């Protein structure tokens, strides 16, 4: 079955695959995680706001993006971002957006919806008496959020946020559909060039499996350490 398995093709190309492909995937993952959590937290605060239009706006955005496939979202932003960019800087023609920036914008805007729902649950898990105590001490909204509610919400939700990041790491592989140079795209190019599809895709699967398994074990360990004794 694996008699004709050609390890040599992996030996010849693994440096390109890891240091270009996987590096691209990891960079997008980490930056999209940071941007997504920041935007997602803002969205969660908007959804919980007592100003109705703000809550509806955030709720509509989150529910819209969560109802359509990521593949479709990637296509949307791939075509939309040049137009939005042109609109922002007032250019008459759609601007050119690099592969990296396009992927990054897409994943920040998309994953923010999922991070938003996690942070919303996190904020709601803090007893409202704590916010009330903050206001009674004379703090304003941003002080209450920044010093009392959000630090605890982040701490409670860290394992869930990290689990979502593992999903994000897997989702980045979908930039294959717009041929951005991520791990899967580069592997598939090598696979087609050398006629070695079996070796390349098995290699990609093994690397993803090992990394995701390792990360989810770490998250599980962290979960035990972070748990607050109540």
């Amino acid at each position: 079955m694996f008699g004709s398995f050609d390890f040599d093709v992996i030996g010849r190309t693994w440096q390109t695959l890891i240091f270009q492909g996987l590096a691209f995937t990891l960079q997008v993952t980490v930056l999209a995680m940071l941007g997504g959590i920041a935007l997602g937290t803002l969205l969660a605060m908007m959804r919980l706001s007592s100003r109705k239009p703000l809550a509806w706006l955030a709720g509509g955005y989150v529910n819209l993006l969560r109802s359509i496939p990521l593949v479709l979202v990637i296509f949307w932003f791939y075509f939309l971002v040049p137009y939005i960019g042109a609109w922002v800087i007032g250019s008459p023609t759609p601007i050119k957006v690099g592969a990296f920036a396009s992927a990054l914008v897409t994943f920040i805007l998309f994953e923010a919806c999922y991070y938003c729902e996690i942070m919303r649950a996190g904020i709601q898990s803090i007893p409202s008496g704590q916010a009330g105590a903050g206001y009674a001490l004379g703090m304003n909204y941003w002080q209450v959020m920044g010093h009392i509610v959000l630090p605890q919400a982040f701490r409670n939700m860290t394992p869930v946020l990290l689990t979502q990041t593992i999903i994000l790491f897997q989702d980045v592989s979908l930039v294959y559909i717009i041929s951005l140079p991520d791990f899967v795209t580069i592997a598939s190019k090598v696979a087609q060039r050398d006629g070695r599809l079996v070796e390349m895709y098995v290699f990609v699967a093994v690397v993803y499996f090992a990394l995701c398994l390792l990360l989810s074990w770490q998250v599980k360990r962290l979960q035990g350490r972070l748990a607050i004794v109540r």
Partner: protein
Amino acid sequence: MNYNWNWGIFWEMSPDASGNYLQTLLSGLNWTLATAITAWVVALALGAVVGTMRTTPLLWAARLGNAYVEVFRNIPLLVQMFLWFFVVPELLPKAAGTWLKQLPNASFWTAVVALAFFTSARVAEQVRAGIQSLPRGQMLAGTALGLTLPQTYRYVLLPMAFRIILPPLTSEFLNIIKNSAVALTIGLMELTARARSMQEFSFQVFEAFTAATLIYLAVNAVVVLAMRGVERWLAVPGYIGARAR
């Protein structure tokens, strides 16, 4: 913004000569639903078995179930599709591999298999959580009544567990519909793929993707409403889910 809007595009003939663009999109919706529903039936069956295995007192069964879930959860769906489509036919005996590759609608069947295994791991996770959320006394009561282990699962634990996990199962069903779009990478002409090819032929990018988005939203709404009905119909009196009928 200098973009030429043309909403009339949906009534123009599409180049694949099967009708206008709207009909092409709807035929894509058919493929999306066929793929998602077929895969869902398999995923539910597999997930129920694997999820149950993980809660049994049999150590080897629990370990096997855990390994199954880890394998299908930790590889991206796109890579799993490629494995089923490009790699599995090569690893089989030559005749079987050739038969697989020449199957009519090969991309449909591959997408169904890939989605079914991928989703079954997530269903298994829900089923395990559902069974473990039941009070331990239920299993003990079943045993005390003289039921065998399979009978305890069949008549006591699973009927309750499945009712408890209906809401997360609904999200998994919505996920499988959305995930079926990944199958465009192996050539399945489902809804997103049709919108993309419409955009390539007509250059009406935003109309095509708007139509696909609206269709996905409509499908979502139908599924959510239907599942709400199912939840009310199956609700157990005395539990939080069982409100006024």
